[in-house]
């Protein structure tokens, strides 16, 4: 059995189990930790799919930055006391599960009709990844996708400003008369 097959069959069940764990955990902190496990599994898949740059980015950005942000907000809000699991919509849960099963079956059938379960990836990705994967990604990024790249930088700035605006606590407006009254009071 080739090595990447072994890696796949070890990490695929772990990734699915951690996703289910995230789904079932009542405690938000536990769910976040399960999600970190899932992100690490996906990073390993990127590695066996010959994308080591995305492997590093996945661990740094997702498992590192984004999940730390999530945990930080969970701690900030103190919402670790578990979820209210009462359903308010009738039959939402069984319908959702039926829909999920139908969706998985549909994807499996579509993949079988489309590319088939025996199609192996062609060799020769090393030639594409010359001289290295990061360089290959940079070549495509800065030649073919330069405008979207610049737009993303604007998007990030807007997101940072939006977070600041949403996060600030609004102080009550103080009128000039109140200010003068305060000065008179202190004098």
């Amino acid at each position, binding site marked *: 059995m080739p090595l990447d097959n072994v890696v*796949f069959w070890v990490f695929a069940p772990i990734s699915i189990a951690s996703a289910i764990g995230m*789904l079932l955990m009542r405690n938000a902190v536990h769910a976040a930790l399960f999600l970190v496990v899932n992100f690490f599994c996906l990073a390993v898949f990127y590695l066996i799919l010959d994308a080591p740059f995305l492997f590093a980015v996945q661990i740094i950005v997702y498992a590192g930055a984004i999940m730390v942000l999530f945990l930080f907000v969970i701690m900030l809000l103190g919402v670790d006391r578990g979820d209210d699991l009462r359903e308010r919509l009738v039959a939402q849960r069984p319908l959702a599960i039926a*829909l999920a099963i139908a969706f998985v079956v549909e994807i499996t059938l579509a*993949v079988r009709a489309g590319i088939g379960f025996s199609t192996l990836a062609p060799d020769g990705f090393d030639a594409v990844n010359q001289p290295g994967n990061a360089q290959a990604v940079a070549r495509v990024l800065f030649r073919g996708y330069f405008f979207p790249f610049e737009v993303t930088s604007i998007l990030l700035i807007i997101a940072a400003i939006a977070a600041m605006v949403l996060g600030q606590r609004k102080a009550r407006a103080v009128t000039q008369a109140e200010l003068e009254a305060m000065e008179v009071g202190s004098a």
Partner: protein
Amino acid sequence: MRTPIAYFIVLSGILFTLGTLGVLLRKNALLIFMSVELQLNAVNLALVAFSRMHLEVDGQVIAFFSMVVAAAEVVVGLAIIVAVYRRRGTVDVDQARGLAG
């Protein structure tokens, strides 16, 4: 590489479905948000797998863009959740029914 690409696509579909279930079934806004992250990651896996199959790096570039957009989305989304928590004292989405008739 001897693992068929279809396995990765099906795995990505399963993870996406689990993320969808999380969005549909959970009440905590933070957990719904984490499920959305799971969905985004599942789609990234499919993009990278197709990139490997077609011997093109473009799929990886798109996955990279989707990570950047997801980072921006997390920043804004968590800020909104914090703002909702300050106003209502809860992040239960069923409590946010100010527009209900």
